[in-house]
């Protein structure tokens, strides 16, 4: 068999929508016999906490379709015109949008972030927490799930330099 491919990912965003790509690619890459390391930095760090509380904010995503996950098909296909000037300041709007997105994902058979992260751990993906941003945002090693490793830019680049795939998310 060919030599194992390597994939190096950087997860710098912690919102619900941006939490998916690194965990989907990391788990699938590991399933495809790749050695995978994901470097969690800045807002990606909270994705390593036992309970993931990632939310999605429509105000920061102007192109996000605003659709309902229930009701007749015609109703579900309506893209509700929500002015961002309103959604950005309305209390509870992000929580509602997050709930709707999670409901849609579940209905469409998409795994939760936690399930995908469990798969990553099971398949041997190395999850690295950025030491510098841990210090900046006040995270301790005990704040994260078991198995997380810790490192900095040089440690990541040392692996990335030999990797076949490198992506920043």
């Amino acid at each position: 068999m060919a030599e194992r491919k390597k994939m190096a990912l950087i997860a710098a965003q912690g919102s619900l929508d941006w939490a998916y790509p690194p965990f989907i690619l990391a788990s699938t890459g590991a399933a495809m016999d790749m050695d995978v390391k994901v470097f969690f930095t800045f807002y990606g760090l909270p994705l390593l906490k036992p309970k993931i509380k990632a939310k999605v904010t429509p105000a920061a995503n102007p192109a996000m379709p605003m659709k309902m996950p229930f009701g007749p098909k015609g109703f579900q296909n309506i893209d509700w015109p929500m002015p961002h000037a309103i959604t950005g300041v309305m209390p509870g709007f992000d929580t509602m949008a997050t709930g709707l997105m999670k409901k849609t994902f579940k209905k469409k058979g998409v795994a939760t972030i936690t399930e995908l992260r469990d798969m990553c751990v099971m398949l041997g993906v190395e999850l690295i927490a950025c030491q510098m941003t841990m210090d900046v945002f006040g995270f301790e090693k005990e704040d994260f799930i078991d198995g997380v490793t810790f490192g900095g830019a040089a440690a990541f680049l040392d692996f990335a330099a030999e990797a076949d795939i490198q992506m920043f998310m």
Partner: protein
Amino acid sequence: MAHDDEIDCSGMNCPLPVLKTKMKIDGMAAGSTLKVITTDPGSCQDIPAWANRVGHEVVETGEGDGKFWFMVKRGE
């Protein structure tokens, strides 16, 4: 077609069919055949791509009643 085991990934979306199939086939003997059933149209590209990458062989595929199926022969 005869197969040794079966996994039903109906209702699952990307990347779950690939992940579940990988975990299932890892526990099977080399040369044995796993039947994978899916409903995700994306799996029609994903299952063969995964199998090809890791050295398994998709020996037969088919679809009907809104489902797709793949016969995956485990490599060495």
